[in-house]
């Protein structure tokens, strides 16, 4: 288990370094001076010179690469000349908002997705199963930001039940919770279909295993066999998917956050892209990639702990 953990973490670190290197190379491969690129056409020469110095662009390239890595490792993702604040500070200010949104979206999607997937197996090969299948594909394919806009139209503009924009009044959990409902709904709905499909497929596979036959041979009712004996095993692969899900849902939150004007990583980065605020964009991308790798790696290790069979394989 320890060897596996070390290997898995080492791989994540190597990937993160490759990503950093690739992004760094990309900035330098694209024609144009990164400082002017970052500052845009209206920048004054003085500002450009200041930024060049700040970014260390006067140094030899290899030296710059070394600096970039060293700073990134110590958590220094650069300095934002617009807001005059370190990039990491801004990311850490906005990230909790996005994380809450992502967790809320995945949370309700997981609950409903598992229920629908298990229902499809209990009712397998009936019309209900086929209907759930079509529904899942439909949910997966509809873009979240379109759902977001329709949700605003219906629940905020027409019915006036929920707020259309913002993250609620700071310090008022009730208003923050109300402001979370529509974005979490829009962001999670695709995952309901995805998880339902995954749980169904995984559960059907488990239902063919010998221990299921044993449970039936002792006269356990089918529902109990599916829910207790099947689902417990079938749920394990969804943990890996959830980790990937959290990583990717946080970045697809970009659109949903923008539609709802909700402060978060998404609004931070889109604002920065529109201003071509290069340090903020790069810092955010790096941060989100590191977060994604962290979650995925942690999930892999969690699975190795949860599934006694996997655990046993690594113990040997």
């Amino acid at each position: 288990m320890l060897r596996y953990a070390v290997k898995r973490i080492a791989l994540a670190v190597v990937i993160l370094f490759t990503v950093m290197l690739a992004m760094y190379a990309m900035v330098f491969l694209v024609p144009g001076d990164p400082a002017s690129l970052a500052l845009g056409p209206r920048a004054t020469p003085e500002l450009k010179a200041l930024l060049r110095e700040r970014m260390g662009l006067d140094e030899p390239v290899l030296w710059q690469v070394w600096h970039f890595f060293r700073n990134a490792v110590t958590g220094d993702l650069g300095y934002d000349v617009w807001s005059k604040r370190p990039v990491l500070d801004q990311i850490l200010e906005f990230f909790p908002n996005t994380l809450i949104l992502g967790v809320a979206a995945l949370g309700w999607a997981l609950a409903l997705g598992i229920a629908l997937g298990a229902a499809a197996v209990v009712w397998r090969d009936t019309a209900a199963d086929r209907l759930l299948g079509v529904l899942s594909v439909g949910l997966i394919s509809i873009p979240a930001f379109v759902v977001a806009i329709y949700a605003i139209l219906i629940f905020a503009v027409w019915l006036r039940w929920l707020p259309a924009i913002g993250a609620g009044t700071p310090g008022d959990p009730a208003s923050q919770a109300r402001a979370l409902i529509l974005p979490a709904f829009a962001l999670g709905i695709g995952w309901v279909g995805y998880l339902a499909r995954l749980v169904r497929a995984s559960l059907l596979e488990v239902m063919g295993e010998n221990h299921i036959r044993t449970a039936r041979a002792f006269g356990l009712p089918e529902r109990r066999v599916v829910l207790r004996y099947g689902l417990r095993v079938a749920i394990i692969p969804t943990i890996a998917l959830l980790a990937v899900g959290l990583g990717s849902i946080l970045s697809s939150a970009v659109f949903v956050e923008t539609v709802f004007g909700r402060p978060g990583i998404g609004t931070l980065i889109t604002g920065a892209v529109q201003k071509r605020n290069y340090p903020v964009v790069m810092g955010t991308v790096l941060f989100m990639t590191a977060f994604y790798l962290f979650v995925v790696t942690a999930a892999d290790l969690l699975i190795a702990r949860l599934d006694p069979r996997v655990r046993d394989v690594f113990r040997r």
Partner: protein
Amino acid sequence: MSSGGRFRALRALLSDPMGALGLGLVLLFVVMALFAPWVAPADPIKLNVAEKFQPPSLAHLAGTDQLGRDLLSRIVYGARTALAIALTAVGLAGVGGLILGMIAGFGPRWLDAVLVLLFDSMSSLPMIMFALAVITIVGPGTGTLILVVVLVSIPAYARLIRAQTLALSGADFIVAERAMGASSARILFRHLLPNVVGPLLILLSMDVPVVIMLEAGLSYLNLGVRPPTPSWGNILYDGYTSIRAAPHMVVIAGLPLVLSTLGFTFLGEGLRDALDPRLRRRVAG
């Protein structure tokens, strides 16, 4: 594949209600895109501020937007934008993935290791984050959009091709062919290529709706297709900004996105089942 096989696949596709519905929707949008000038009732970028925010009527079947442009015409031309970008990007990415995957699977081991690390790194980058990074560096526009899609999609395709190539390299007929002195190029093009193209096409077709969504999303953020060129994304954005003044705009502007992604997804699923049921799990995973 024989033509009989192809017809059998088509019949299988049409006999599945979801697949048939998907094919119908996709054909609808393809016709819209190909024959946009004939299908569209008006010029999609011609302003007529006097007629702004008009609800659907006989003159404007889908109403008009905040600048008095005919919404239906904009949607029809938007189909052209969406499909042109999606097909170009996915096509280029497919070719790139095919080449890189075959190099990884067939080339020397060190090269394979390097490429696999690159693929792994690329797929660890959240797609939208990566897209935003590229847009920041290169600047927004249609070309950037295609570049992003190509870069983001190549790893998945290359991995599929690599796995297929590796699996086939050990197959008896390839080993025999090599023993008889066939060149690597001959083995690649005569034996591997025909065998790996099928699964790749299915994967490509299933990525078309993803690209349509990405294009619309980025255009919605004004980071994709530049106005006034109609894109479903910026049409939706126009609708959103007028959500109180003219709710018909946003209701109608969301439909092509919903229907096209549904259509392509259903078609992709149907195709996969019709062509190769064994792929069910591989592609889904």
